């Protein structure tokens, strides 16, 4: 190697004539840099947001610039779950299972108004925000978000990944749902998140 350690162990010296390059860095920085720039998305596209997601992945906006050129349609090889579109209650166990099948480290992006809050679908069939089913790292607003918006969300996620500490094991713990209810968060919080707002409070279909 080009590195030689002097006898006093104080200084690292470099011998240019050895013609060998070397670099010193923090392990955290190296690992996070590699992770942040090779996030493989698991696309979970259920509605129009998926069209914008496809546009983001296509040549004009080109997600490959951020290391996401490979859509991982197998959750076992994916790093980031991108939920693009509304999630009906019937899909809730499916997105939950996909999330549980993804290996650590994993992140998730909730893309668009419907995935983040239920959007305009404040009805009997649609989950009021996927954060009631799975943990979410980044919310991308919009209906649907433009590709620039999604890319901004992805850049935010990359910032988050770059600031993680390898020593902090807590972020990598797999969340276990409550065994009886299968929920990650308490029912009262879910009810609060699903609380309607605006003029549609307690409105029935018939208006009776």
């Amino acid at each position, binding site marked *: 190697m080009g590195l030689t350690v002097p006898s006093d162990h104080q200084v690292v010296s470099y011998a240019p004539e050895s013609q060998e390059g070397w670099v010193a860095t923090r392990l955290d920085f190296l690992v996070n840099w590699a992770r942040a720039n090779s996030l493989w998305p698991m696309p979970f596209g259920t509605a129009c947001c998926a069209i914008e997601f496809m546009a983001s992945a296509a040549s004009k906006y080109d997600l490959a610039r951020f290391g996401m050129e490979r859509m991982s349609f197998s959750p076992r090889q994916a790093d980031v779950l991108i939920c693009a579109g509304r999630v009906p*209650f*019937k899909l*809730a*166990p*499916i997105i*939950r*299972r996909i999330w549980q099948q993804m290996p650590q480290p994993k992140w998730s992006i909730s893309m668009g108004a419907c995935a983040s809050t239920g959007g305009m679908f*404040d*009805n*009997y*069939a649609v*989950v*009021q925000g996927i954060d*009631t*089913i799975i943990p979410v790292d980044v919310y991308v607003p919009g209906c649907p978000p433009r590709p620039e918006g999604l890319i901004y969300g992805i850049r935010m996620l990359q910032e988050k990944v770059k600031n993680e500490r390898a020593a902090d094991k807590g972020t990598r713990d797999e969340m276990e749902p409550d065994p009886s*209810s*299968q*929920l990650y968060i308490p*029912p*009262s919080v*879910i*009810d609060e*998140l*699903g609380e*309607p707002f605006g003029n*549609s409070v307690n*409105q*029935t*279909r*018939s*208006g*009776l």
Partner: protein
Amino acid sequence: MTRFEVVTTGESSGTDQPTTPKNIPHRGGAANPSAKALQDKFSSAIKRVDVVWGETTVYVEPGFVRQAILWLHDDASQRYDFLSDVTAVEYRDPEVPLEVVWHLRSLPFRRFIRIKAQIPKGAPLEIDSVYDIYRAADWLERECYDMFGIRFRGHPDLRRILMWEQYKEGFPLRKDFPLRGRFSRSEQLRQALAQNPEARYSMEELSIADAYAELPDEMRERLSKGERTGE
């Protein structure tokens, strides 16, 4: 004549091109000739014929709907060989009965007819299935049952299709159903997460039997041992 045979007679077999009708009156246009034929054939079972924007609606007694549709399908002068839709309408006025609607199309004669049956207030929501006339009615009737709770007598596999099968809150498109469902959000989520995603489709539904010969050996072996993914 056997059913499902290729039809080459009728108006669409001629050389005349189909034309787009123009200047259709809102009400009282020319009725589909099949409506008159239905009245001649079933007389008192046909309650009313409406023509709105050139489309004919025939109101039939609920007990005669299946016969009428069977006749429309089989008779050589009608040949309604395509079932577009089966659905239902519940009106906001609580006095108006719930209607079940069939949309039929005759490809040979280029005709469209809408059959409606009014289920009287207080009567059980039941009507005869047309599954044995049109296979297309299978999922359409299941959807109608799922959303309105109308039971189709004679349907071989009447269960929910849009909502999951253990859905407990009722029939979402009924007027007495609250827009957000009957349960709290957390309870809805808890029940939804309790489903088994793999229990949704039975081997029968996937028509595995049709493709049995092309299946991999390993899967054939598992199926022959009676394995199925359904409940």
